[in-house]
């Protein structure tokens, strides 16, 4: 259908909100990152703060940590989430109870997930206590240091736990739809579970899985609470560094914080391009699903 003029008017409030708050916010952050602070008499744009932010000795370790936790958590979350979604699609009849059961963990706030990881995996946590009960360790200090560790294992674990349900919720409707249409045909023709899984369900839900993976990675890359609670003081993830610079008492740390923020925005922009590329195939999939359901 073709829209009329009134329809464009209808979009104005939302577009103003997006452009003003998000666009405006990022542009202003960029202006500050370029060192333009009329209040301090600084009016000439400079790349000094970008150089300072990316040139300091902690930048590369922070970038490496951020990339590592985002990658590891994405792989773990995509595998676990897809596993649950495909398993549920294959073996459980769809119902609103199932939908809710899959959704509930999605709604746990980041802070709570971080706290759960602390309670279970820290050296005084439940896991080391279990290891002690089994006689595998004899001292608290023998427990593997999973939290506040240099590799960011605790952070990756927290992010994976947070994002796996998201992947499951995104992939489930597609997996369920494939199973109930093409899957049924394949079963009638004698396909067994592994064939069904590898030759039909996974290839056909792949665009949804890829989309979920890109979103999960972008989230992991810029997430704040989980690394802030589960990370050590050095190295920190980029978002945590930006926050620390921003809240520091030194006024000239602020433009550096903004520069750090813009760096994160640029990296996420690359991911956004990947997202829109993958979501085009995702839309095509969505279309096929509807045709499949109608048939």
């Amino acid at each position: 259908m073709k829209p009329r003029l009134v329809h464009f008017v209808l979009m104005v409030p939302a577009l103003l909100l997006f452009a003003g708050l998000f666009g405006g916010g990022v542009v202003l952050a960029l202006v500050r990152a370029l060192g333009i602070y009329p209040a301090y008499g600084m009016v000439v744009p400079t790349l000094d703060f970008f150089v300072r932010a990316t040139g300091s000795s902690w930048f590369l370790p922070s970038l490496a940590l951020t990339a590592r936790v985002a990658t590891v958590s994405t792989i773990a979350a995509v595998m676990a989430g897809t596993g649950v979604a495909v398993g549920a699609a294959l073996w459980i009849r769809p119902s609103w109870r199932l939908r809710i059961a899959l959704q509930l963990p999605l709604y746990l706030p980041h802070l709570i997930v971080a706290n759960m990881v602390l309670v279970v995996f820290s050296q005084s946590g439940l896991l080391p206590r279990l290891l002690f009960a089994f006689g595998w360790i004899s001292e608290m200090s023998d427990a593997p240091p999973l939290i506040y560790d240099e590799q960011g294992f605790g952070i990756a674990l927290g992010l994976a736990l947070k994002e796996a349900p998201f992947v499951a919720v995104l992939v489930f409707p597609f997996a369920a739809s494939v199973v109930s249409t093409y899957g049924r045909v394949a079963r009638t023709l004698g396909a067994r579970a592994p064939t069904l899984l590898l030759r039909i369900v996974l290839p056909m839900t792949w665009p949804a899985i890829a989309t979920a993976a890109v979103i999960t990675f972008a989230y992991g890359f810029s997430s704040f609470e989980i690394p802030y609670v589960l990370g050590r003081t050095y190295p920190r993830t980029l978002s945590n560094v930006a926050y620390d610079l921003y809240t520091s008492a030194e006024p000239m740390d602020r433009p550096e914080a903004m520069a750090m923020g813009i760096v994160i925005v640029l990296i996420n922009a690359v991911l956004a391009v990947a997202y829109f590329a993958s979501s085009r195939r995702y839309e095509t999939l969505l279309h096929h699903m509807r045709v499949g359901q109608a048939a």
Partner: protein
Amino acid sequence: MNKMGAAVVSLILLVLAGPLLPLMLWSVANRWPWPRLLPETYSSRSWEFVLDRDSGFVIGLGWSFAIAAAVTVIALLVSLPIARVLGLYRFRGKSVIEVLVLLPLLMPAFVAAMGLHETFIHWGLTDTVSGVILIQLVPTMPYMVRTLSTGFTLIGTRLEDQARTLGAGSLRIAMSVTLPRLAHAMVAGSTFVFLASLGDYLLTVLVGGDAVPTLPLVLFPYIAAGDRPLAAVGSLLLALCPLATVLALESALANFSSMRANQEAKG
């Protein structure tokens, strides 16, 4: 649902409840020294402290609910029109608008919050509830627009056209044809926005500071300081209230759907 399915769903719920169990134990633990698997002594002290008005937890929960409700209502009202246009119409430049609307979903909203700080000071929005509500719209609106526009695409305009042919006015069509049929999408979008707002820490602290002490802000120091019992009670409060809200909304929706199904069967 078959018995097998019910069993599997219960199993999933059990697995989900599993991680909450240690928090529940900590919330009633008095002494729980290493390496015991269960607390040595129990007490209701932590719950009493958290539920006491002076500790700030209950007031924080109130703030969180009020802000989340406001964010949800505003996001819903602002998103409905644009979602309708994006869901039902084709026009040149549509994909640009779609990208623009979805972009905040993939971007760190806190950078926008940092950039807006001085502007917010200028407008008197820092350290205010309105400022927190505005900034929380940034990461949550994309979900609402996306969910609602899919909803509009799915319901189409066929029934609206029929109603119009039968002489119904625009308001009547909206109230008795479009919105009821959009109920599922509205509940799905609202649930997500509500819970995302409820759990937010960073944006709230950047814009509202100490002046808007929502539950995550009250809870954070206890988690950071490693105060296990109080952190556990606060976490349960912040985790279970949203879950209760979702279940209430979903069952209301289920009732609403069956009520409408009955009406349509009679009519």
